[in-house]
């Protein structure tokens, strides 16, 4: 009963809730080369609403608007760099799915390389140390005699 009341309340609330505007329907550019460029750009730009998708794959209304903006700018003759700069000016570096190489991101780009290099050095140092262990000296005459005696004892047993 309680569950039914809850479901009823929820459906009433949802019926009363306002509907966000429908996304603009994508209209591909007539020129296939330009459209391919626009789509490639859309795939390189992050959606700021659902943050782990590109605007090419996001269903968010804002992503549809941004796809439209990308098409318009490409059609207006902007270079890829100019379109990306347009987006970064409004939403920050965050919208670039591939972060730029700059002082703030050096650690990000070079960190893994530095760690691999460091690991390589440690391994190389370890291997060299192991190889440097001197070969055991040959047995002296006394030791040789004792060894043979021991082995002979074992055979007898």
């Amino acid at each position, binding site marked *: 009963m309680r569950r039914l009341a809850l479901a009823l309340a929820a459906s009433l609330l949802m019926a009363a*809730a306002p509907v966000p*505007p429908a996304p603009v329907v994508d209209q591909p550019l007539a020129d296939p080369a330009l459209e391919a460029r626009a789509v490639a750009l859309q795939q390189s730009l992050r959606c*700021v*609403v659902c*943050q782990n998708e590109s605007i090419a794959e996001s269903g968010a*209304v804002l992503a549809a608007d*941004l796809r439209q*903006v990308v098409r318009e700018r490409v059609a207006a003759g902007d270079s890829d760099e100019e379109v990306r700069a347009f987006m970064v000016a*409004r939403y*920050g570096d965050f919208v670039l799915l591939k972060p730029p190489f700059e002082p703030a991101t050096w650690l990000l780009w070079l960190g893994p390389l530095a760690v691999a290099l460091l690991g390589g050095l440690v391994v190389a140092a370890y291997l060299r140390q192991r190889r440097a262990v001197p070969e055991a000296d040959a047995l002296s005459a006394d030791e040789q005699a004792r060894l043979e005696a021991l082995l002979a004892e074992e055979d007898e047993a």
Partner: protein
Amino acid sequence: MIRRLMFFAPVMVLMILAGLLWLGLGRDPEALPSTLIDEPLPAFELAPVRPGETHGLSSADFADRLMLLNVFASWCVGCRVEHPFLMQLAEQGVIIQGLDWKDAPGDGAAWLADHGDPYDRVGNDPDGRTGIDLGVSGAPETFVVDAQGRVRYRHVGPITPEVWRAELEPILQRLETEG
């Protein structure tokens, strides 16, 4: 000595990493900084929302006084939440400019007639392009704009009394004394 240090190095690296990850846990990955902070508002000129008006809202309206720019929409649930508080703020003399984001003409006016109108001026941005120029990712969002028309702060999400006391009021007070 060196050997002993080498022995502890992995433990220390692990502890530093754990510390950084721990700090990372407390950060909100969805909080995006606005690129407009300390920059002038981008130029815009919006059609009126209120019936009978000829001027909606333009970037030139942000001059001489500290103001808020509130991005809202009739379809936005968070805007309903903050609306009564915006009405209170307007009564206290806070100047709020309204940007009616991605609303069909008429929807914004109907919404203001239903819920009250806390805005000094309201402009309609039906295709959301001015919102994109402002770096808006959703409604509601509120910008603090100083007397020179520069954006000084952005709040994403509804303004509740708690948000107002903790975030926005101190900033407005500081900017007010700054002149």
